[in-house]
């Protein structure tokens, strides 16, 4: 049995302007110790998917349906108290902005100790010792001296390390990292990613890594979901995704990565804007921006199905296999030159 199995997950926000379908029928699963990358532009539904699994969406005007089976139990219909037992204990979460994710009026130590004591009936002294151990594990220098400091005394990278320490403190089975490196500068990003990889080996947690950065995905993920406009457009093993990407949107993402080898003046970009989720385009949601658009794309929505060559490589595109292989080969050829 998969650790987490998400089936036909939908999250709709009812607003004054209409219904925003932020997540519209998403299926995936996460195995023990596996790292799943979710990649997509802002507003593609990656974060909302995870907030829905965690039950952290605002309750007002939000409707979720489908299933999110955690060790066989549906999190969407679980009682709030059951959900609280799981949150921070079995599933924990790291957020995008470490500058605002820690409470400014409590010390780092108090916040870590709180995370332990919510789930474990241990004394403050034991909890504090554990907190210190985790701060050392995530590489906070002079952790003994810094445990009583306040968040504003830490840099962004150090705060994200504290967030990671807090997420791992109860040995969770699954760690959801929602763009954990986006707000950090590049050298710090690399450190945080290396830290997460190392900790995954030590703690054995599965990870869902949400990002818009394919570089991060290549670095850390085993499996990858590509999301566009609230739906999954491609789902594959990380090697297959980079070697034979099957969806024009994925090509677009890869083409817009800066390369040292390509002799291009400008980066290629995906034309247009991500669609409004209030009134998504008919047919394939990517068709208004797709350079390969055909008549069928405007009317019929492609289903997410296995590609002909590889049953584990799921994609949602009407293009024929030959065109896909040709285009994918162009991209990967460029990569191979380097």
């Amino acid at each position: 049995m998969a650790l987490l199995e998400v089936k036909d997950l939908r999250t709709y926000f009812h607003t004054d302007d209409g219904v925003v379908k932020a997540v519209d029928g998403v299926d995936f699963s996460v195995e023990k110790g596996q790292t799943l990358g979710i990649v997509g532009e802002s507003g593609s539904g990656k974060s909302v998917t995870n907030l829905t699994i965690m039950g952290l969406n605002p309750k007002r005007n939000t409707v979720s349906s489908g299933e999110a089976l955690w060790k066989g139990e549906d999190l969407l219909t679980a009682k709030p108290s059951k959900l609280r037992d799981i949150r921070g204990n079995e599933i924990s979460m790291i957020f995008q902005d470490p500058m605002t994710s820690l409470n400014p009026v409590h010390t780092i130590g108090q916040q870590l100790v709180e995370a332990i004591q919510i789930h474990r009936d241990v004394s403050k002294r034991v909890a504090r010792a554990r907190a210190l151990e985790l701060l050392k594990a995530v590489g906070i220098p002079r952790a003994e001296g810094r445990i009583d400091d306040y968040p504003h005394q830490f840099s962004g990278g150090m705060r994200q390390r504290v967030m990671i320490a807090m997420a791992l403190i109860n040995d969770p089975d699954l760690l959801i990292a929602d763009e954990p490196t986006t707000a950090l500068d590049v050298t710090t990003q690399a450190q945080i990613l290396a830290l997460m990889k190392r900790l995954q080996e030590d703690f054995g947690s599965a990870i869902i890594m949400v990002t818009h950065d394919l570089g991060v995905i290549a670095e850390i993920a085993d499996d990858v979901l590509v999301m566009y406009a609230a739906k999954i457009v491609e789902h594959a093993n990380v090697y297959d995704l980079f070697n034979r990407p099957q969806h024009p949107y994925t090509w677009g993402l890869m083409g817009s990565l800066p390369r040292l080898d390509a002799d291009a003046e400008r980066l290629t970009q995906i034309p247009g804007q991500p669609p409004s989720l209030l009134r998504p385009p008919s047919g394939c949601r990517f068709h208004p921006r797709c350079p390969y658009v055909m008549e069928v794309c405007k009317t019929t929505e492609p289903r997410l199905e296995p590609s002909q060559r590889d049953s584990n490589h799921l994609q949602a595109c009407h293009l024929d296999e030959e065109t896909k292989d040709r285009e994918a080969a162009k991209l990967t050829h460029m990569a191979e030159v380097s």
Partner: protein
Amino acid sequence: MFRYLIRRLLWAILLFIVITFVTFVVFFMAPSNPARGYCGGENAKPECIKLATEKLGLDQPLPIQYLKFLKRIVVDQSLGTSYFTGQDVNEAIAQAAPVTASLVFGGAILWMMIGLVVGVFSALKPRSLLDRVAMVFVLIGVSAHPVWIGLIFSYFFGFRWGITPIANYANFFGAPEGSGLPGGPWQWFYHMILPWCTFAILFAALYVRMIRANVMETMNEDYVRTARAKGAPERSVLTKHVLRNAMLPVVTMLGMDIGLALGGAIFTETVYQLPGLGRTAILAINVNDLAIVQGVVVFSTLAIIFFNLVVDLLYAWIDPRIRLT
């Protein structure tokens, strides 16, 4: 923390000098001649005015007068004597200040209780019935004048239904011997109920609105989501994470409003005939007794400076970001 303290204290001293100077200038440059007031006003004899001018030092240059005035306050700790009754101003204020303090602090406790309870609950359930009723209360509270509210309260609760006294004050420590006035803690409380309610309504309304907005804003902060993601129960999310942060601006407001409230106390004291600072000042203004008026102003200034200092220190204590800068 120590440097913060020193800096705050120096500010307080500077503030005191500036405000006493302004007070001095306003009162002694005022068109009405204090010496004339000293001699009985309109019908004062010229000889008396001449004598009084010398006695009060009014013939000396202004800076000298100000320094003498400052020396009298700081060194002698005296606010002078009333031009009219010859009463020691310190004594007059010592009698009036506890009345105003009862009103302001009792009122502040009441408005904070209302503000916190109603504000937090409306923030937790926006657009609920409670929230809508609270918002109507806020509108009435900020629109209605305390004098009007006071008269209405006093008429219905005091006169028509006889639930509370109509007016007047009862000393907490017992009435003076043989005065026949009510006294003691219970009578004090009984007499203060209506003034407290009247006084607190405006501020309660403002604080309900402010606390509601602050709590709603803080609920959307990332660290509140972090607390939920940790699995913290809603109650501890609210108390540990939301309220502590939402109360930061409220504490600052409270410090500023205590000063404002001293001004507002004048209305309530007048309606309920409470012999507090506001009423003392009004009576003194009516008879042109500048010494008393000035005494009240200087004393209130000191009180406000003191409370602002206390609030600043309190703020540093609850917000670590201030403490360390």
